[in-house]
């Protein structure tokens, strides 16, 4: 999400350059004004004057500065922007600090304590958002990104330890290899998490762009709502209330559970928990009764949509948008190294010989197969183990076991 803010430093009669900001790609003019206030307070303007542009010299006519969100990605192009960026540094969000800390984290990897230190630091950064910029979309964007950053820290300590061990076994550039390995692992984790949770990132970005809406029902119609109004031909009509007004009061509350308790009903822990009853196998009569109740309650589909809903619930129709891993939700929790590193299952086989060779080929193929679950792979290996144990005599005759 890039927002280009073009700074027009125009020459004024007073000679002091007045910064007027215009923005491309922002629809709302009000928003730009708000941004201009937050990013260019008076103090900054004075510095701009002192540092770069004196009254008599010709100021820069245009310069493009990329806004606060993207300062990590682009190098500032002119001296103007350099001063601006430097001024912004003390105000940069938790995100920047977090990135610095992450890069510093490369060399010293003592896992848990460091993560906790990071988290506590990040939680301190967050309340430092400026109150004036609270309503602007930029702060929402920053919050969304900091939340994303928080998720990236959740690498298991074993993986981190393994990465450090691998890096130390490499001959050259240990810290760099380790940081690269950790980066890959983090990327992998974030990808899988994004995949699991669906499109949460995009929603955050989309929301960040939207402005906080004003109260929708601020202006109610002047006339009383239910009064019949008369048309030209004398036939009256009532103003369509719609469902909106009825739920207005409900919607005005931010959530369902705010408001004072009425204490009408006693709280839930009134009845003590009875000991769990014995669960007997449901008899055929019970099953039949349950089926009968279900059939009575189930309504026949009134239209094609309801029919499709019913089929989807039955499992006859796929779920849309198509999920390639529809039946395999548990499988996504299995970490990748259990799929790939299957050598440990080969312990029962002989160390040398054609059988071992054969099994190594089998394991090689299985590790490259993305369509099987780990359980299925294990079943394959077990079957071979049993088979070779049964055929032991034949193999010993041909000196293969």
């Amino acid at each position, binding site marked *: 999400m890039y927002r280009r803010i073009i700074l027009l430093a125009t020459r004024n009669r007073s000679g002091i350059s007045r910064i007027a900001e215009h923005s491309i790609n922002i629809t709302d003019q009000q928003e730009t004004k708000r941004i201009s206030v937050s990013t260019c307070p008076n103090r900054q303007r004075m510095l701009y004057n002192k540092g770069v542009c004196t009254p008599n010299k010709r100021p820069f006519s245009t310069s493009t500065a990329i806004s606060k969100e993207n300062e990590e990605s682009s190098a500032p192009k002119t001296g103007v922007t350099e001063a601006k960026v430097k001024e912004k540094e003390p105000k940069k969000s938790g995100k920047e600090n977090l990135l610095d800390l992450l890069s510093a984290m490369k060399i010293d990897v003592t896992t848990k304590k460091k993560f906790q230190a990071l988290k506590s630091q990040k939680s301190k950064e967050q309340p430092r958002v400026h109150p004036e910029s609270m309503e602007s979309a930029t702060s929402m964007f920053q919050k969304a990104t900091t939340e994303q950053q928080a998720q990236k820290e959740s690498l298991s300590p074993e993986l981190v330890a393994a990465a450090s061990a691998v890096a130390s076994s490499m001959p050259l550039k240990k810290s760099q290899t380790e940081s690269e390995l950790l980066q890959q692992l983090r990327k992998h984790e974030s990808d899988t998490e994004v995949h699991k949770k669906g499109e949460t990132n995009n929603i955050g970005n989309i929301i960040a762009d939207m402005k906080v809406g004003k109260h929708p029902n601020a202006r109610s119609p002047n006339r009383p709502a239910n009064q019949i109004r008369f048309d030209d031909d004398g036939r009256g009509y009532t103003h369509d209330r719609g469902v909106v007004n009825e739920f207005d009061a409900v919607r005005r509350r931010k959530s369902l559970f705010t408001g004072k308790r009425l204490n009408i009903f006693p709280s839930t822990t009134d009845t003590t928990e009875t000991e769990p009853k014995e669960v007997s196998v449901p008899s055929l009569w019970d099953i039949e009764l349950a089926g009968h109740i279900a059939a009575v309650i189930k309504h026949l589909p009134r239209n094609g949509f309801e029919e499709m809903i019913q089929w989807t619930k039955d499992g006859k129709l796929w779920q849309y948008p198509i999920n390639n891993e529809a039946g395999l939700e548990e499988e996504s929790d299995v970490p990748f190294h259990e799929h790939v590193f299957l050598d440990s299952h080969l312990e029962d086989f002989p160390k040398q010989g054609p059988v071992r060779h*054969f099994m190594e080929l089998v394991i090689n193929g299985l590790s490259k197969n993305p*369509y099987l679950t780990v359980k*299925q792979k294990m079943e*394959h290996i077990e*079957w071979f183990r049993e*088979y070779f144990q049964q*055929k032991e005599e034949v193999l010993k005759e*041909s000196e293969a076991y």
Partner: protein
Amino acid sequence: MAASVLSRVVKSGFEFLQTSFRITSQAGNVEQVRGYYVNWRMLRDVKRRQMAFEYANDRLRMNAIRKNTILPKELQEIADKEIAAFPRDSCPVRIRSRCVMTSRPRGVKRRWRLSRIVFRHLADHNQMPGIQRAMW
């Protein structure tokens, strides 16, 4: 893996409406079940698909042992005999893709599982979404 490949091939195998199929209930007595497959040949094809699904993994592993240059030949000969001892309906080669509506063994388009005659009939009556008469 073989099982999942074959499960796509085993299309309607798990509908338990069969034409006069004999099944053994939990109590052990043989019961007749009336069903609605088009003809006996279709039923037999269904049974072959179910059996091929069951034995798919075993056949895959046995073939992996047989088609091999590493394991000793005696073992491979024994494996040959074992795979020949599997029931005949368990091999996927015996499956024939039939039309779902008419059980016609020939002229079946794989994507719709219909024979050409039924396909044409439905398409002309506008029952096939996205199908249009070609004209160019």
